[in-house]
């Protein structure tokens, strides 16, 4: 099975971020980057499928030169080769919305004729949750989102899909297909030291975004349908509420608040 995994390099989850002077994005100076979490699960699913059924895992990532480290990490974990859709700087890709990025990704992988395309369900930075789904449409392939588990069944796949409120759905679909993967259903592997060494010898095909656009003018950034207007840090607030009544009443009120106000249970 030939599997393509689209991965994105995003600011690390624990990174202490500052808003940049234009209030449009975060200041990238001194920020650590890592593989988008759900993309890491997509890669893990792909590697497990390859281990069970054989085949090839190819990672594709759109991003500036720094994304090379995340690509290398994917290769070190066991991907066979990579396509780096490289932007010339931090801003080139910002001119595209999710549709535009999906177009670029589709253009860079369509010749591979993969049996399966996996990606995370959304990115940890923008969180649009669109790129994978649009990619399926552009490639003319069926897709399923929020996937927790993939099994090969006959000529197609059987997948477990997460619904809301503890419900799950089992879906069978034919390949080729695109799946967007939910985090957390499996344990991510570490890059072994041997894997890191071996990654140096694996192929990374670098395609400059500008070259891709030059070869196909329809890939030029058009007026984006979604525009990022402003980025701001959540307002810090602290307040104390005393819940009155009997212990039982206070507990019931607390449960209600935890359930419906802060939604943590």
């Amino acid at each position, binding site marked *: 099975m030939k599997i393509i995994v689209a991965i994105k390099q995003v600011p690390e989850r*624990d990174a202490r971020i500052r808003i940049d002077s234009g209030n449009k994005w975060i200041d990238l100076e001194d920020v*650590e980057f890592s593989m988008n979490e759900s993309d890491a699960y997509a890669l893990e699913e792909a590697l497990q499928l390859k281990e069970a059924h054989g085949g090839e895992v190819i990672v594709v990532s759109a991003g500036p030169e720094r994304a*090379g*480290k995340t690509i*290398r*990490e994917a290769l*070190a974990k066991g991907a066979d080769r990579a396509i780096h859709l490289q932007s010339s700087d931090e801003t080139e890709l910002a001119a595209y919305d999710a549709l535009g990025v999906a177009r670029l990704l589709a253009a860079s992988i369509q010749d591979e004729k993969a049996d399966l395309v996996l990606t995370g369900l959304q990115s940890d930075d923008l969180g649009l949750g669109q790129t994978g789904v649009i990619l399926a449409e552009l490639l003319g392939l069926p897709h399923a989102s929020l996937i927790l588990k993939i099994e090969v069944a006959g000529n197609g796949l059987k997948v477990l899909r997460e619904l809301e409120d503890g419900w799950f759905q089992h879906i069978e679909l034919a390949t080729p297909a695109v799946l967007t993967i939910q985090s957390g259903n499996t344990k991510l592997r*570490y*890059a*072994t*030291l*041997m894997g*890191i*060494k071996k*990654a*140096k010898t694996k192929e990374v095909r670098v395609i400059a975004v500008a070259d891709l656009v030059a070869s196909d003018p329809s890939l030029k950034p058009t007026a984006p349908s979604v525009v990022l207007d402003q980025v701001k840090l959540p307002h810090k607030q602290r307040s104390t509420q005393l819940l009155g009544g009997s212990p039982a009443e206070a507990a019931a009120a607390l449960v209600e608040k935890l359930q419906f106000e802060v939604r943590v249970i």
Partner: protein
Amino acid sequence: MGFKFQNVDFLKFDTLLNEDERLVRDTARAFVEDNLVPIIEDCFREGRFPRELVPQMGELGFFGANLHGYGCAGMSNVEYGLVMQELERGDSGFRSFVSVQSALVMYPIYTFGSEEQKQKWLPDLASGRKLGCFGLTEPGFGSNPGGMTTRARKVGDEYILNGEKMWITSGNIADVAIIWAKVVDDPEPGKETVRGFLVETDRPGFRADEVHGKWSLRASVTSGLSLQDVHIPASNLLPGSGGLKSPLMCLNQARYGISWGAIGAAMSCYDTALQYAKTRKQFRNEPIASHQLIQEKLVWMISEISKAQLLSLHAGRLKDAGTLTHEIISLAKRNNVWMALECARMARQVLGANGITEDYPIMRHMMNLESVITYEGTHDIHALIIGGHITGSPAF
């Protein structure tokens, strides 16, 4: 408990590392964070070595990481050092176990062993299927290993070993011991040369007794070894070993790793103190991080950690270039372990009474580092190694 570790990098040190070095460090860091940090306080309290982590460490390539072939990862010395740093950020005892397996067991087999010995032992030691220990120190001979009383006598196709070894990390869990002994009448009558021997620990006459009552390195096993008429085939001699220089070469490997490891312990203490100081409020309801004397302590720590990072990185680059000398290793080991112990003591003070509990890693690091500043050449012995080198006058 404690705080989740945040990378300690004042100098933009990470920009001095290449992509692979950072990936190696990230793997070791994630492994320690996910697997060791959650259990280490229990292990330390119970005096238990977390052996359950050994197979995974073998798979990741942590054992003999800077050796090439025979199932080893073939890392550079800087990459190996970064692994040591992360392991010791978890715990010095845990790092000690890996140092022994790598630098004191696999390295001598790799360097002084026959091809057959390498084939037999290295792949199993690299995977963690077999564990090893290193017997040089004796009850009466610590800083002066040349005075060792352990003897090997050649009789026919065998050597017969007799002696006692002390303070042996992993002694009770080892499948093989690298025993350093003086060979009687070698090469001529009356002359004795230190040689290394592979001694399988299930041979009759070999005994390991665990050292109990340690207040340090409680998450690793420390033993005394006794060898009474232990017969081993002559083929168990490490053929390339000869003279005290051989075990000292092993110690240089280990000491280099320790210089990195100590940075990890110091980072853990500093990071804990920094995060604590930002949250702990005292006087005027202000975080103690805003107090001048607390800032002075934090600044001392980050300054020393930053200098130590550069020192170990420099040593690592020299080692990769083949130009590292043992005096530089002595300087790095001595300086970095000393500064780590000072960091532990200062960090403990920043945390006040909370610093003495196992809720934070600081006291554990401090107790561990009391061993680290003593083993593999004491702080003072390293001073004399450097002193002898710069003055030309050996003091011991």
